[in-house]
């Protein structure tokens, strides 16, 4: 069975090889640029967990490995931010081939979210790299010039997010088996993730007609910050649909996702779907890479997931008084520094048993 349904493993590979952890986007100096690029292409080959198509895509450009890395890195960061208050806090596992341990073996809600987020994050990273001019391969979408298949100078190019989506579809979806139930679920969630990026884009316009009037106007769209996309996906995660795979037409082998209960709403393309209930995240499970909620900090006053009652799974908690240090009265100094004062206070600290 395919144990690596997403491309997160790249991240982990770089961890284990100590190339960059956390990944730094800082460039090597330009003197070794050529050796660097061959190195990059070779490294695509060394990523054994990539299927052939993914290797091809990885080798498209010198900077592709770096872009893939950024995408993976940001997805993990976002996942950990979004799940910081949940029982499973998107914890990564060292020294394993699979970055989240075995958690994603379950066709669970969490798996749905992680897939969607990784597809979205890759599309986002690729689109940004295209805008920066780092990837030469970004397509000049033919849609704009469908009728007149001429050069860019004739009719321009489409937005970068189009290529980002296309690449993400090509790369992330390449691993999925369209026949298996898991594959169908993952494909659906990947697409939902990409749509979350698209749906959060903001339209900006500029008038440039006679004397700058709006008789001629041109519009484009801004890429949203990944945090906004992840927040949107997080909402989708909470409202994810529990589905089952049904054979649509016997013999023709068309399989579709239908809600598990017929009276539930049919999920649309932007909704996340899952096939199985989540495993128990309360107790540590080495095999699955679940750390459990022991020694997690909880919020005594909250009634939500981060509240001590839910987070500690009813095991109770201990309260300690700790010196709390917090950055405060911050001032940003352009370009590169944030000047903050450190405020100290004593606070109660609740830790799950």
């Amino acid at each position, binding site marked *: 069975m395919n144990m690596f349904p997403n491309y997160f493993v790249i991240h982990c590979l770089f961890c284990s090889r100590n190339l960059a952890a956390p990944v730094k986007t800082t460039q090597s100096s330009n003197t070794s640029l050529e050796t660097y690029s061959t190195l990059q292409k070779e490294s695509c080959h060394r990523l054994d967990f990539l299927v052939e198509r993914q290797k091809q895509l990885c080798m498209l450009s010198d900077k592709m490995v770096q872009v893939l890395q950024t995408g993976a890195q940001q997805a993990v960061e976002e996942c950990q931010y979004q799940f910081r208050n949940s029982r499973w806090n998107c914890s990564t596992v060292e020294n394993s081939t699979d970055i989240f341990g075995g958690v994603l073996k379950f066709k669970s809600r969490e798996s749905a979210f992680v897939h969607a987020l990784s597809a979205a994050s890759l599309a986002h990273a690729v689109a940004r790299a295209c805008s*920066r001019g780092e990837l030469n391969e970004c397509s000049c979408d033919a849609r704009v010039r469908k009728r007149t298949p001429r050069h860019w100078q004739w009719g*321009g*190019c489409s937005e970068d997010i189009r290529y980002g989506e296309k690449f993400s579809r090509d790369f992330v979806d390449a691993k999925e088996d369209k026949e298996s139930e898991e594959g169908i679920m993952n494909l659906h969630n990947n697409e939902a993730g990409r749509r979350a990026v698209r749906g959060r884009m903001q339209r900006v316009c500029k008038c440039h007609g*006679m004397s700058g009037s709006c008789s001629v*106007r*041109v519009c484009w769209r801004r890429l949203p910050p990944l945090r906004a996309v992840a927040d949107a996906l997080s909402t989708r995660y909470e409202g994810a649909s529990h589905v089952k795979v049904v054979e649509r037409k016997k013999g023709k082998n068309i399989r579709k996702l239908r809600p598990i209960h017929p009276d539930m709403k049919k999920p649309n393309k932007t909704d996340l779907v899952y096939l199985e209930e989540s495993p128990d995240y309360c107790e540590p499970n080495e095999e699955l890479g679940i750390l459990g909620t022991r020694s997690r900090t909880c919020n005594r006053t909250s009634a939500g997931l981060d509240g001590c009652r839910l987070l500690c799974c009813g095991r109770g908690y201990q309260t300690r008084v700790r010196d709390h240090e917090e950055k405060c009265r911050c001032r940003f100094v352009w370009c*590169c520094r944030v000047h903050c004062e450190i405020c100290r206070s004593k606070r109660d600290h609740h830790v799950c048993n």
Partner: protein
Amino acid sequence: MTGTIIENLSGRKLAVLVTLLLLCQVICFLIGGLVAPMPANTQTILGTVCKDTSVMKNDTSKWFYNRGKGSCQTVDLGETHHDLSERDIVFAFQMPVPREGERFDYSRWQQNLIGVLQLDVRYHSQMEVKPRSTVTIDARLAYRNKGDPDDEWKLYTQSIEKRNLDCDIDVKSEEYLYNCSTIPLFELGSLYHDYYLLNIRLPVNTPDMNVHIGHLQDIWVTVINQNGGFTKVWLSLKTAFFPCIIAILVWFWNRIHMLERKPVLLEKMLLSLGISLCLLNAPIEYLTLQYDLPFMLLLGDIRQGLFYATLFSFWLIFAGEHMLIQDTSSQSSLKQYWRHLSAVAMGCVSLFIFDMCERGIQLRNPFYSIWVTDLGTNLALTFIILAGISTGVYFLFLCYMVWKVFKNISHKRQALPTMCSVRRLHYEGIIYRFKFLMLATLLCAALTVIGFILGQVAEGQWKWDETIELEYTSAFFTGVYGMWNIYIFSLLVLYAPSHKRWPVNENTSDTQNLSEEIEFSPIPERSEISSLTSFIRKATID
């Protein structure tokens, strides 16, 4: 006496002419919709943050770029750098961005380049950004041509500019970005070179410079250029219309000179309308393919303005000439319309001054914007409001005059039943055709306005999976452009003096009217004027 062609044209011929012109109109629309691409193209470029290690920061021979030999050392702004100061940070934008494994270059067909700046300011709960602040930008623009080495950038222009930054935020949460207004950065009237490079620094020369802009995460520059394909289609249309209008103008002037009288005001107005359209049609953009002409944007504005001014004046005089009922003796002249025309003149002059202040100064400094300083904003607003008021006054005048003409006509119509049948038919014909032209004008204006609004609405509903094959925006531009050309063409044709002596018409109903000719024009004609005008003047005397 002679009339204009429209009065003597049979209904069938008129129908054929109108059908032909409508066909041209549809063709213009379809050319824009099916052949031309979108009028403008945008490329959004994310700034590469480069590290400037040089000691002399004012050196304009040192350029920072992220592609090709000698590209810069990049910095990640997400991390804190204690070894860097704001003086060492350069945002580099190399345009155009490569696509499909090719290095693209700008073609001169793409005509102009407009740059818009977008700052991504990150939200921090500890330090909120004021909604309005000023950002100081040190912008330098360089160019390079095909065949030049990768590092041979030459300075195009440089400037230190202040811009207003309006930021607000809906979701106050870490990592979210402020919604900052876009900042117009530069406008190049000519796209003469192949590659451009923009280097942006945010200097901190005084203690309060650039300190209130918040945590800047990224800078995006959106560059807008006209699409080469659109320029080609547009210029082809111009090249087609230009000789047509010239030819019809020559024909029109010849016809007037064949008459024994001097040209009347309406004919002079028609001539100047034709000439201003010729100026608009003249495809001088071909010159930009060979020479560097940065004034093309300004010249385009002036040509359009001139055309609108003549068109608006023509409508006023057209209405006025069909109303002058009191003095039949004197030749009407422009002087009589000075009050009406002053509204047009005022609007045009104020728009011209505004344009000179904005695009005129941009010839010297492409980064200039009048909207930055308070004085400039007030000045610009004054001129724009003046132009707006003038337009309002003008339309009030025009509506009043048209209303008066119609009142006049309907008043005289009551007298029609007392006339003999043939004369009545003739009068009714004239009124019908006058109204027909009024209708054509209204139709053209309405179509322009409706088309414009439809375009705005259609654009508002931004869709991804468009299946419509028609490029609406381009179709609208070519359609409207063709429409006004056809409109003026038909005016020149239909309002040219007719050579047919009115009574000797092959038209069966008219041939019998020889006897009535004397009755028809009892006033001695000192000048040959359009019979419609004479009809109204005569009718008042009746």
